[in-house]
């Protein structure tokens, strides 16, 4: 294991985030506040409680997930796309490091960043509504696993994309809709039975549900289904990344 190399990539990526530290922090704080004003105050005043939790508190886990998914994908995809775009990828590919170490550096940095943002959103939300976290360790586990998994997904997108449009496409067309339809702002019990069944095909439902379980001890699906889903996701992402490096896809002719 070439720790020095991993550290170098990791720190360079973190430094890149730090250069834009203000945007990095301000934007999630502002958007979280907006969600609270719109959903929590405006709509929440009509919906008093969901599953025995105030609506404001109910949406907190979903909001954090939303931030976590979008930030992980955005940071990791840009992180690896940029050297491909600028041409400096030659250096990474000719360095004495394994594929695993490359992934560790890039994905580790992206996951760290989105984890920190997730915690900032959590703290911001706490300013708006009171809530308690029943299973903090499970919550952290979910945060970490989701950050890693979706950073891996971002890494894959960053390698697949051959232009800035494609880089934006997946988050825009897939991640954001799936998150919004994934029970972020509602309990799927509120849907008619047919749509409930359809929603269960959305993997994000399991993430949001499991994450919410760690807060309030209840979710749309069982915690084991949620853990199983995130494990499956992680496994698939790892397999794809492994295939990318083995085959040289988009990296090595």
């Amino acid at each position, binding site marked *: 294991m070439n720790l*020095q190399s991993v550290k*170098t990539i990791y720190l360079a990526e973190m430094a890149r985030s730090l250069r834009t530290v203000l945007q990095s922090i301000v934007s999630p704080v502002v958007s979280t506040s907006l969600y609270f004003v719109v959903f929590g105050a405006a709509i929440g005043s009509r919906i008093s409680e969901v599953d025995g939790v105030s609506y404001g508190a109910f949406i907190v886990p979903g909001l954090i997930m939303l931030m976590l998914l979008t930030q992980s994908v955005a940071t990791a995809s840009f992180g690896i796309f940029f050297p491909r775009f600028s041409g400096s990828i030659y250096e990474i590919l000719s360095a*004495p490091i394994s594929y695993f170490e490359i992934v560790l550096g890039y994905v580790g940095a992206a996951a760290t960043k989105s984890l920190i943002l997730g915690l900032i959103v959590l703290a911001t939300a706490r300013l708006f509504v009171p809530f308690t976290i029943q299973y903090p360790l499970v919550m952290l586990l979910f945060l970490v696993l989701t950050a890693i998994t979706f950073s891996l997904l971002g890494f894959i997108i960053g390698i697949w994309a051959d232009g800035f449009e494609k880089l934006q496409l997946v988050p825009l067309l897939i991640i954001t809709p799936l998150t919004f339809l994934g029970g972020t702002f509602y309990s799927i019990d509120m849907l008619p039975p047919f749509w409930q069944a359809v929603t269960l095909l959305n993997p994000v439902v399991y993430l949001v549900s499991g994450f919410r379980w760690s807060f309030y001890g209840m979710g749309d699906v069982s915690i084991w289904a949620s853990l199983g889903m995130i494990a499956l996701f992680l496994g698939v992402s790892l397999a794809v990344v492994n295939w990318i490096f083995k085959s*040289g896809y988009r990296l090595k002719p």
Partner: protein
Amino acid sequence: MIRVEGVSKTFRGGFEALRNIDLTIRRGEIFALLGPNGAGKTTLISVICGLVNASAGRVLVDGHDNVAAYRRAREMIGLVPQELTNEAFTTVWDTVSFSRGLFGKPKNPAHIERVLRALTLWEKRNNRLLELSGGMKRRVLIAKALAHEPQVLFLDEPTAGVDVELRREMWNVVRDLRDQGVTIILTTHYIEEAEEMADRIGVIRRGELVLVEEKHALMHQLGRKELTLHLDTPLSAVPPGLASHELTLAEDGHALVYTYDTSRPGKGEGTGISALLTDLEAAGLQVKDLHTRQSSLEEIFVSLVRENA
């Protein structure tokens, strides 16, 4: 230092960029790889550095297979790519330090400073790359390649876009490196660069290595020599008595040019010069002056590439 054994590369789509290349680079030499655009120079370097997977054959760097033992092999190599990269927002110091760390070496600011000074980039160390000129950016790439103290340095057209004065400075940097024991492989389109610097020269054409030779031997062997004879009285045609020699008239008949090859004997024995001189005397021509000229590497190169076309 580097052994390339039977390396071929066929790109997806079926283009054969390298065909069965065998090449040995000796420790401590400067090896110049020449060839026209699209010949496969960059592809060959990319295969050695692990950026392109070979379709066949293998590469050993100091005995380490560059696939099976890629860590050992790559640690030794520094690569300066042909294309400029475009990491606009990092500073010179940061990007060069990054390169060192990436190759697994612990921080060593003193070494980075030496490299930057040698490449006259020290003044610019805190500038972001977007604030540098093209020639400076190229030198930054060289600094990055040297940051981890490689034993082998690949320079893919290092002096493209670098002004004449700086080019000479860079040649000196390269020679200094060689004197420190670094093996250097460079590609260039400036033949004078190869002529000036290389110990050995390889010529690659359409994916085939058509020639590998010591520079001096190459210039000697392939060097066409010209003997120019300046005449007292101008001629309108080559006199019949001299028709058996390969002569051409030049300078409005004021000179006769004789082309010969020092390695390939001409008519009779040797270079044919003595026979020519005898015939000149018989023809009654007065020679005022004479000089000889050896063709430059550039002429050799052009004729070689054309000859095989």
